[in-house]
């Protein structure tokens, strides 16, 4: 699904950032430096980020700027991470979330 990355643009230049390896539900995937988790997933053709905790309907991102919480996922074991603003880091273990998640240790 490499064709999702824009390489040719009349105004913007997107330099090819370093490749970042991560996994999504166990599958190895590649993102780029500068990606958020959600943008990297989208570039890999992944639109479904989780399932509603009650209705189990599929969910994708909506606002992409951290306002709406439609994009919550489990990242490195931590649930309810807003993946549309959380930067993608090497080796991240990203999983779809389909329950309310567990609160952080406080």
């Amino acid at each position, binding site marked *: 699904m490499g*064709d*999702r*990355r*824009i390489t*040719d*643009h*009349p*105004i*913007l230049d*997107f330099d090819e950032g370093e490749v970042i390896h991560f996994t999504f539900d166990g599958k190895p995937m590649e993102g780029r430096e*500068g*990606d*958020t988790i959600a*943008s990297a997933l*989208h*570039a890999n053709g992944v*639109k*479904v*980020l989780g399932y*509603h905790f009650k209705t189990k*309907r*599929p*969910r*994708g*991102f*909506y*606002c*992409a*700027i*951290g*306002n*709406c919480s439609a994009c919550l996922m489990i990242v490195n074991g931590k649930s309810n991470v807003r993946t*549309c*603003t959380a*930067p993608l880091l090497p080796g991240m273990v990203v999983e779809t979330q389909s329950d309310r998640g567990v609160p952080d240790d406080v």
Partner: protein
Amino acid sequence: MMYKIDLVVIGGGPAGLMAANTAAEAGAEVLLLERDGHLGGQLVKQTHKFFGSEKQHASVRGIDISTMLGDRLDSFGDRATVWKNATAIGFYEDGVITVDHDGVYKKVKPKRVVVATGASEKFLSFPNNDLPGIYGAGAVQTMMNVYGIRPGHRVLMIGAGNIGLIVSYQLMQAGVSVAAIVEGLPKIGGYAVHAGKVRRAGVPILTSHTILRADGQESVERATIARIDRTWNAIPETERTIECDVICISVGLTPLAELLWQAGCEMRYIPALGGSVPLRNDCLETTVKGVYVAGDVTGIEEASAAMVEGHLAGLEAAASLGFKSDSYDAERKDCMEQLTALRSGPTAEKIRTGLACTACL
């Protein structure tokens, strides 16, 4: 630990950046809080050249304006601090602001605050509106222009205001096809220049139309649209199906004013300004002393007005602390004149009516 400072500006969009710059210039110590990893707010995703006069950087692209303002803030050295990845999560009656800064919980007690948190996108209700592939227009813009990723192959745009029109054009620039732009009103809301651009590129703008439903297995595969009558009811037998993998919702913005509610500012619901907005005086100070507002959080306008409001709010907040430069009077007068000019045309009539209801004190 409690951080103490002259002024905290919440939000690093055009309004917040101008407020922070102006107050630092006047001599105040400023802390700017930005939720995102970068400054600029909505500006960073705007690749088109701006309207307005030269003072508000007309014909400069939005992304370049935000870099300019960020660099200027850097030039103040220690007087201006920027926390990125810092979300203001609470604003208490004793004036304490709580912040999640890179996962660390912090408390700040400033003498003055400028709230410039901007706006969030409105949503539309129709069956299956929660399917993945249905995105806000701003989200699509962020994906394309900030991260360089196409949202899909074929988009149905809902809303023919400026944002809907501009994002449609930008989708085509990125090589994505736009099936149609659907608009409920009988006429196009955005500027004729933007509408002309998309029409020339062959995209139909369907006025007096609405989306009835979306369908698809795990994500959007098609949408059903129909013509509507004056009371917004679908006219039978005008239904048609549009194949698309993205539906982009661009039906307006609403002020992101939660922090102002929490701080106890008096708010008023003004539809012409996009939702509930704070009452304020002509220094942009709300009904809570020391709390100023600027930009889209005061009512949905444009970046140009947001910058001028930011300038004014920063100027007044600093002046109230005794940081009043020789140019104070001239700057204040200039801001007032710019705002009047920006809000003078026929397209700004709605804004003028809305603003008439926001005066307090």
